[in-house]
């Protein structure tokens, strides 16, 4: 593929991500933080996020599998997940986490299980999207192009 085309695609793709609410301004900030000193900053943070989230999701599934659920623990996990997702700008995961925490406060097992499913769903969605995005970026870099600045006019 031609570099320019890929660049356009990347821009379009990023736009859709913002439009669909997968990402928010935080991600832009993240991207801005990336410079020559930290060339792989975004990738690094995003993969950190993936690791962290997967660990947390596992913990959550385990915690909710217990016969008597320790909602404090669950809440703490969700809080962490919320923190990390909000700091990379994974907006929908964050929103799901907020709902999750509300149900945690109510100690509603059914709802929390539902929420867990939703959070997982959102997480995998955003993971896919981000992976695609990062792959595209890598391809562009590999093809020798520069990553275009993302238009912020969403």
């Amino acid at each position, binding site marked *: 593929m031609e570099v320019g085309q890929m660049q356009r695609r990347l821009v379009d793709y990023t736009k859709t991500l913002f439009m669909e609410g997968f990402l928010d301004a935080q991600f832009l*900030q993240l991207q801005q933080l990336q410079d020559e000193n930290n060339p792989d900053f975004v990738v*690094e943070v995003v993969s950190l996020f993936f690791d962290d989230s997967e660990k947390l999701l596992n913990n959550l599934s385990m915690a909710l599998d217990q016969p008597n659920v320790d909602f404090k623990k669950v809440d703490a996990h969700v809080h962490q997940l919320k923190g990390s997702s909000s700091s990379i*700008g994974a907006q929908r995961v964050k929103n799901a986490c907020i709902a999750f925490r509300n149900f945690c406060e109510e100690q509603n097992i059914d709802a929390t299980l539902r929420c867990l499913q939703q959070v997982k769903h959102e997480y995998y969605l955003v993971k896919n999207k981000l992976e695609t995005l990062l792959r595209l970026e890598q391809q562009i870099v590999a093809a020798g192009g520069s990553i275009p600045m993302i238009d912020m006019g969403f």
Partner: protein
Amino acid sequence: MAEKSFETTSQVCCSTGSESLPILASPMESPLRKVLSRISGFVPSWGKKTAPPGRRIFHRDVEQDEFQNGTAHCLSSYYSVFVARLAIMVMLAILIGLLTVLTWHFTRVYTTKSLNTLAYGLRYELLQRPILRMWNILNSTSEITTAQVKLSEYVIRRYSKPTNQAEQIEQLYQMMKDITWALFASRKALNAITINYRNGFVQAFHRDHRSNNTFYIYSDLANYSISDTGSYDNKSQSSRQGWNDQFIHGNVSAIWYRQPLDPLTGEKIGKSSQIPPEDLINIAGPSQVPDGVASWHVAVSKYTDSPLLSAALPVWDASNKSIVAVVGVTTALYSVGQLMKELVEVHSGYIYLTSQEGYLLATSTNTPLLNNTAKGPKLMMAANSEDRVIRMGAQWLQKTYGNKFPPGHVVHVEKANLGGQHYYIDSFFLNLKRLPIVGVIIIPRKYIMGKVEERALKTLVILISASVCILAIGCVCILILTNGVSKEMKLRAELISHLDARRRAEASSNYKSQFLANMSHELRTPMAAVIGLLDILICDDCLTNEQYAMVTQIRKCSTALLRLLNNILDLSKVESGKLVLEEAEFDLGRELEGLVDMFSVQCINHNVETVLDLSDDIPKVVRGDSARVVQVFANLISNSIKFTTSGHIILRGWCENPNVSSDSGKFSPDQKKPMSALKTKLKHGNHMKKVSKKDNKMILWFEVDDTGCGIDPSKWESVFESFEQADPSTTRTHGGTGLGLCIVRTLVNKMGGEIKVVKKNGQGTLMRLFLLLSTPADGLEQQRQIDFAKHSVAVILALHGSMGRLIMSKWLSKNGVPTLEASEWNELTQILRELFHARTTNSGFDTHYSLAKPLRSKVQTLQDMKKLVYIIVVDLGLLDLSTEIWKEQLNFLDKFSGQVKFAWMLNHDTSNAIKMELRKKGHILMVNKPLYKAKMLHILEAVIKESYVEPQNRSPNGTKGTSKQGDSHECLEIDSTQFETCSSDDSDISEMTGANSVSSVGIREQLKEGTILKSGPPTLRNCLVEFTRLGLEVNNLRTEEDQCNGRPKFHDTKDVKCENPNSSEQPLVRSNVKDRDNSYTTNKAASEQKSLEGLRLLLAEDTPVLQRVATIMLEKMGAVVVAVGDGAQAVEALNCELDGDENRTNRLQTEICDSPPYDLILMDCQMPMMDGYEATKAIRKSEERTGWHVPIVALTAHAMSSDKEKCLKVGMDAYLTKPIDYKLMVSTILSLTKRSTKG
């Protein structure tokens, strides 16, 4: 018994029913329950009925419908109340009626019954007696008869020997006569004894009771012989009739004699005489004993008027085969009648005896018992009795029973109506053989039952009337009671509905507040994003000018919107009681100065003068919520500015001290009256004073005085309501939501103060408020004042604003500094010339202005004083800047520079060229408008210091002062930067949520709005940055800042600072300025990137992603970041650094000797192992021994204000929410590190 229990239960029901109608009484009769349940069923219906009003507020469109429903409910409820009342009354009536009837019935029935029993007994007894008497009479009669018969038999048997018949017979008769007499005499009651022999001879004794004579009656003996006896006997069977006939005829044919006898002795007392047969007494003959057995019958005689009872018994001969004689005994029944009379007399009743056939035998009355017919007296039937009652009784009995008397003739009739009166009739039957007797007693009912019946009637009447009364009273009571109950129930229902409505209203208000809080919170986030993105957009180079303008406009609008949201949030916070005031020390004066600085920028465009006039007794440092205090004044001042087009806005402040009478002379003339008024007002707020004394609290009074359009007195109160504006039309011209003053008032009230609009002389509005703020425990340190008098300085105030000048000159003269005032250029030149006319011969300006007299005299007094140091405070506005004349003016002033010191008041938009020019001329003292106490103090101190050091380095100062002292000027200039930045566009007042953030906002703002403020503001930061970059000592920097801020430290460091300016930095600063002129954005980016240069930060964050992001962010800005995973690690890191630091401190005891290892800690609140709160507490505890204070900034995802309080409570200094806002973080860090280095 049963009735009684029923009665009690029903009473219980009644009472429970009436007392506690709303409550369902448990055990009750089913109808009662039904009624009560109906009643209780109405209660909710009332509730429903009255409930609508609450809802009506909310649903006005359904009001009509509800109203109709309401009336329907009303009607039905009235109806049901009516029915309930009726039911209760009917029940009461039934109850009382029942009670009455039962009472009456039982009392009556029992008495009647017992009386009847008694009466029956009485009657029985009464009747029994005469019958017994009758029986006695019969008995005695029969006894006598039997005795006579026995005696006769004996005598006859003795004399029945056939020998000497005649004599014997003679003797026999004689004997018989004697015996019979003996018997007769022994029985006085006997009427007669007769002996009728078979031969027809009759012997008889007769007693006439009326004439009391006794007679012996006998028949002629000649015709009869005893021998006939046999024939008689023989014929007896065959010719009974003949015997009878013979007897009668014989009697008739026989001659009867009657011989009166002495009733006692039986002696003959008279001659026997023949009597006619009709005078003959009844003599029993053989016909009366046909069967040879005794017989009874009732006879009558003409000698007595009562019937006679006669018994006849045959006398048998010895062989017992034939009857030889018949003995008859007659007894009068008179005594029976007598007895009956006696018996009955007391009872006023009647008794009579009849034979079975109904002939009267005896009565208790005196009426004759015999009928005198032609044939002599005859027995009378009872029904024909002359006594009315007896006749009627007999007739009644006959009518009722006829001949069919009940067996035994026993009749008991209790109520026989005889001639209109009621009688008891009782009859008994005395079944004597051959003579059955019936006794009848008639007693008037009245006699026995009369009283009882009368009483019963009376009782009934009384009972009925009583029960009617009770019923009436009961009904009234029920009416009242139910009325009361229903009223009470209505009231209660109303109350309940009111409570309900109130609760709902409160809830809805609460919901509203909560909703507002939530919404504005939620809205703020996207708004922040919008503003952030706009900032980024503004930074973009490739915007055209129009685009740039538009984006700037959008940003302005966004900030305005954000401010509105913040206002709403504030308001709802206050309303929902979530607002908690901080308690921190802050420099009130400085905050207010900053505020005035800020607003003066805004005012310049309006041609309005902003003046700060704080009295000297206001404590420098107070405890309170500085952000809120500033917000109060910011709102008030911005409000004033909004409505003031020309004139001035004065913020006055003084301290209310109960002990020291305030020097009101200092204030404007219209001050005194309101002051006294307020004092009186405070008197009845006495408790407040007490509090203030005890707690070291002070009442600080403030006034915001403007010359705007003013507020109509009728609106003085309502302007403080939310969304209320004095004149709605102003919204169009001035904008605003009307929230500002509301927030002000709630905040002031929260701080224990009050605010109100007071009357003002002249145009404009005067808002007066007082705040209750505590001063620090170490007491009111008196502000250090330099005694200016001894320094012999004089000040010439050449200022435009008359108000500010006036206040300043007053203050100066109060402090012993002589002042001169000039309001325009010409005046100034005049004064200068007057003062220094000898030396200023060649002025290039016209001198035809003559000074006013008082001024001149003042000038002269000043001239008299020797060795005065003159300070001329010149407003740059006095120079004519529009043309090039100002340079000449400057030259003119320059001539005096040897004798006077110039301090220049710059405008905010003063161009750099002018500043440079001034600097070139050696005018080193420059301050920004407006002039207030602190600035004046600065100028004075600077001049005094300079005048001291001048002698030593006059020469270098003269030559290279421009370059050297430029820095110090800038520093002097700088002190107001924090607030200047909010330029003529809408300043972001409400973003100043704390002293720190105020300054941070300032910095942030200046980053964004640097294009407008080309000069001044950024210099501080630039200087700062440059200095740091150049490795200038922190110490130095600090002193510099202290100097800038006019701290008392000034003295200690000033000389060092002034004398040792690092000359090498000058070009850099300059180049910086140039850079900025060329391209602000690049400069900004560069400066921003390095804005945290040299800072050592500790980041405690458990989420790896966030940790990484934050680290990179901070590192990009040049900070050194140490990241740790949790609170415990953070504490540990700090501690080991501390220990290390101590060692280091020992080694290098230089300038950094007591600065903590980290400049700042960023602390996540929620972490495993040890959370942020715990970690902070631990750190603060460990800090106690070193006395440092490392600023800790909380990082939290909890975006609630309560979390903020929690953070601040544990000792954190600021608070950032996740996701981290890049700029906010930078500004927060900067403000905190700056403060910490300062303090």
